[in-house]
């Protein structure tokens, strides 16, 4: 039965609470579109979110969802997936929630290759708490806590995910929505840890503090600074390298763990026999 986005988004909860021009609604619609295209059953989906603007996305979803503490979405998602590998587990985190406070769980979920899709709304700051800088804020940037311009180099989420072993890593922006939908669908279909770093616009804080006065100006900023030339992997010589950086196949944790369980069962049965045989 073909599905549409409102099989996953609760229409009567709209409008979203996000600020005017914030791209989170675009990302959420793209995710719902991917779910619809893949005809996934809401009861088999678990969306795990952390804390932040993007962490409120599951308030609008009719799938299963688990809204956990700041930075811990991937750790909680690991528990969900490990218990029931048949669930489609998607973690929605911001740049702060996902790779700043949540950085440790991000690299280990990738290393462990949990079959989880991490969709990161990367708007270069902590929007919900008032526009403070995060681990991905370009240097220098003006934010609520870097009034003289930030002096800390940011992470490149895709490089980080690739180094940690994630088998699918892609980046799109909320301007390039066709790409965004395709990468989200590919990520969800990938068996293993998949990451989509979505460059997003935050007009209320990041834009206002950095001379990008309106949502339209921010969208133009994305359009004019993105490049598909993949070798230009580094995001921040003030250009956004978009595309699929990693797309390989690698046995995921749950597949290998099921094998481990079989071995363990056989070994323990044999042990039992040896013991009783004496």
């Amino acid at each position, binding site marked *: 039965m073909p599905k549409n986005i409102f099989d996953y988004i609760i229409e009567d909860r709209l409008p*979203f609470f996000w600020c005017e021009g*914030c791209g989170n609604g*675009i990302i959420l619609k793209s995710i719902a579109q991917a779910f619809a295209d893949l005809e996934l059953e809401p009861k088999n989906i678990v969306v795990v979110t952390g804390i932040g603007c993007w962490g409120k996305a599951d308030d609008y979803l009719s799938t299963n969802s688990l809204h956990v503490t700041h930075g811990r979405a991937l750790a909680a998602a690991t528990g969900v997936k490990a218990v029931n590998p048949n669930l489609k587990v998607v973690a929605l985190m911001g740049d702060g929630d996902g790779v700043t406070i949540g950085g440790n769980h991000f690299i280990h979920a990738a290393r462990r290759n949990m079959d989880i899709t991490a969709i990161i709304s990367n708007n270069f700051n902590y929007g919900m708490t008032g526009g403070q800088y995060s681990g991905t804020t370009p240097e220098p940037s003006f934010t609520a806590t870097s009034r003289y311009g930030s002096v800390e180099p940011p992470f490149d989420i895709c490089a980080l995910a690739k180094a940690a072993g994630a088998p699918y890593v892609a980046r799109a922006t909320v301007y390039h*929505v066709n790409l965004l939908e395709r990468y989200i669908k590919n990520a969800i279909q990938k068996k293993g840890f998949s990451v989509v770093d979505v460059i997003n616009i935050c007009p209320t804080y990041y834009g206002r503090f950095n001379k990008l006065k309106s*949502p*339209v100006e921010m969208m133009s900023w994305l359009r004019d600074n993105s490049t598909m030339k993949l070798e230009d992997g580094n995001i921040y010589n003030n250009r956004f390298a978009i595309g699929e950086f990693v797309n390989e196949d690698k046995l995921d944790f749950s597949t290998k763990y099921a094998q481990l369980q079989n071995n363990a069962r056989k070994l323990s049965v044999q042990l039992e026999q040896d013991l009783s045989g004496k």
Partner: protein
Amino acid sequence: MKKQYEISVDEQRCKKCGICVAFCPKNVLEIGINTVPKVAFPEACIGCRWCYLRCPEIAIFVEKKEAV
């Protein structure tokens, strides 16, 4: 018969961010000051749905009108 498209805007959801108007390749939409986008030239619409795709509020829709 040239394909016709019907563009509808949900005025409750629209937060007047102006993105749809700014990035419509055929300038079908116009925006007043602090108002919801107006469908000024519906016949110019080519059905690319960039407005729908880039709307953060799921507040604008493009339906193909049945060819008369």
